[in-house]
């Protein structure tokens, strides 16, 4: 095995929510900035992250870690409230507000950075077939592949993660 080969990270993105879209993109772009090779395999709901004009949401249900809507208030939003119409939009709006306040890069900028810096981005062919997603529905620069494509890359990776 060559000692000179760059370190390599492979990431599987399975979820299509705003909060779950960040970790793969942050880690992949940072890995490239640290002279590593990086690849993200977008499969199942993760495909949503790389759709053109994606508007990712934050689910308000079953998420006790969600910060309180009113700082200082001892209770968060009860799950029963989370099922009401409009609560997903509200949770998403809150999360986007916090992100903007903390000056976190928006998802579209993160995707752009990943593509420009050479993160290999693979959309899952099987998921596309199942969900009726066409290549032109995805942002430019996405490669299409399957489990074999991902595993071929991951077999030589030093770090393998799934989100």
């Amino acid at each position: 095995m060559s000692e000179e080969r760059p370190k390599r990270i492979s990431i599987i993105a399975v979820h299509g929510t705003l909060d779950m879209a960040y970790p793969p993109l942050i880690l992949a772009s940072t890995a490239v900035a640290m002279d590593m090779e990086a690849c993200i395999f977008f499969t199942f709901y993760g495909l949503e992250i790389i759709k053109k004009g994606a508007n990712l949401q934050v689910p308000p249900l079953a998420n006790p870690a969600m910060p309180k809507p009113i700082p200082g208030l001892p209770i968060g939003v009860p799950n029963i409230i989370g099922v009401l119409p409009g609560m997903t939009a509200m949770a998403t709006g809150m999360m986007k507000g916090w992100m903007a306040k903390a000056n976190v890069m928006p998802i579209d900028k993160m995707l752009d950075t990943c593509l420009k810096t050479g993160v290999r981005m693979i959309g899952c062919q099987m998921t596309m077939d199942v969900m009726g997603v066409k290549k032109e529905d995805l942002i430019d620069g996405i490669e299409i592949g399957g489990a074999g494509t991902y595993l071929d890359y991951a077999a030589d990776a030093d770090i393998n993660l799934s989100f």
Partner: protein
Amino acid sequence: MQIAKTLDCKGQCCPEPILNIKAAMGEVKSGDIVEMCATDPGSVNDMASWAKRTGNTIVEQKQEGNVFTFYVKKK
């Protein structure tokens, strides 16, 4: 110390300072020093890890108030 490039990452949070220092390295020559300042407290550890991984050297760093300044020599 002669500064080849100055990079302002104040107000940015993870991972932007690392992405930007990497991009800045592409704009200078080997041996050049880039001055980078950041307010993200995480950048102290992140910059050390970044330098270790990429082979660039943090020749000096300081903190003034909440601003961290790094002087990075390109390998």
